[in-house]
């Protein structure tokens, strides 16, 4: 039937929403928020372990996306990867400013200790597909490679700090990060190519 719903028309891609933001369409931000805010908040919360601060980061990221929409280059990644990187770097900056306090506490804070179960969040099929690919790719990594990548990504540690934390030689940490990330790159490559050519 011709009157059937056509998702392509009604659900513009993330890249199309960012393009709309470039011409100051505030509704596009609201739609992008509906799709990805929960994912970004989850990341900020995992790094910071505090909801109020994590929400401040998410607000900051969407304002950044609004102002820097023109700088988004679809050939260099997806919108969600762009937003995740922005969320991660802002969260780590905040974490580092308070690290001297955390370091004085015995054992420090474990940001993984109080995580809730994954929220039931509505996301588009493209986002679900991407997430599924990511989960598969990360799940295939050897545990020691995944561990060092996560310590760098979520805790913002230097490789020396990771070496101390994991009681591993510095060179081994570097090698594990390289091997793990190169594997992720290989697994994500079809998506990278597809987005780049979209």
């Amino acid at each position, binding site marked *: 039937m011709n009157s059937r719903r056509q998702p392509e028309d009604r659900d513009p891609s993330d890249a199309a929403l960012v393009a709309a*933001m*470039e*011409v*100051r369409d505030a509704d596009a*931000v609201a739609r992008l*928020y*509906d799709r990805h*805010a929960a*994912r970004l*908040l*989850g*990341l900020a*919360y*995992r*790094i910071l372990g505090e*909801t109020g601060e994590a*929400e401040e980061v*998410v*607000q900051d990221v*969407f*304002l950044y996306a*609004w*102002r*820097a929409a*023109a700088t988004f280059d679809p050939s*260099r*990644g*997806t919108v969600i*990867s*762009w937003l995740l*990187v922005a969320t*991660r*770097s*802002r969260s*780590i*900056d905040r974490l580092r400013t308070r690290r001297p306090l955390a370091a004085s506490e015995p054992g420090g804070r474990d940001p993984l200790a109080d*995580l*809730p179960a*994954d*929220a039931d*969040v509505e996301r588009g099929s493209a986002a679900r597909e991407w*997430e599924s*690919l*990511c989960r598969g790719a990360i799940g295939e990594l050897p545990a020691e490679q995944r561990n060092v990548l*996560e310590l*760098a*990504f979520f805790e913002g*540690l*230097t*490789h*020396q700090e990771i070496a101390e934390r994991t009681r591993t030689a510095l060179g081994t940490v*570097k090698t594990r*990060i*390289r091997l793990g*990330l*190169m594997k*992720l*790159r290989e697994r994500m*490559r079809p998506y*990278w190519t597809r987005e780049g050519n979209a």
Partner: protein
Amino acid sequence: MHSEQHEELLSLAAVGVRLVGEDSLEYERLLAEPCPTCAALLPELRFAASSLGIRAPSRSPSAALKDSIVTAIRSDRRPATRSPARSAGFAPWAFAAAAAALFAIVLIDDARLRRQREELRARSADLAQRVERDRSELARRDLVTRVMESDDVRLLFLGGHGPQPEARAKVFWSDKGKRGVLVAGNLQPLPPDRQYQLWVFADGKPIDAGVFDVDPSGRTLFESKDLASIRTAENFAVTVEPRGGVPQPTGPIVLIGTPS
């Protein structure tokens, strides 16, 4: 030339590891090299690294967050694109205004003389400003030359950090001169109420070395304050702070160097 060591450095940078010591210098050298493979690999590795974000479980934001973001965005009046040229509608008004002005001058000679006086005064003030600007520029260049030609000048590289990983800078520092010159690029323009602030680390503590702005292409050439109180500079960093600067760093670090 692309190598396994390059892959290692690019991987560390892509996953957000803070590079320190020799690694930081090596990474700077790598970025300065003409290596198309590295240039293509880094964004792809960053894309791959972003997939790690999926490991964090999603969380439902509070109901107020969306409203707060949308309100902030709707009140943000900064244009994303350049305004179109308005020359089409300008000419008739300009001619009408000019004709009216001429008519008034013809009729009221006194008004014409007054206006001429004001114009001369404005031109004189403009020339005085230009002379002052040229004088400051000359003094600035003189200072830069003196710092760079000091026999104890050191060159330190600052790498992009946090929200501005692409930023790059060099600091020419003279312990004898107690001053440094910062040459930076790829810095993002800031809102009017914010400025970049340079910090010099001495005895492990950050010391305010002055605030600066960047040109529209994100570049600056900036000389630090006279820091007579410090013995030697151990490291440098640049943060984003409220305009005018703050006594201690509060904002995000966007450039950081390698401790000596």
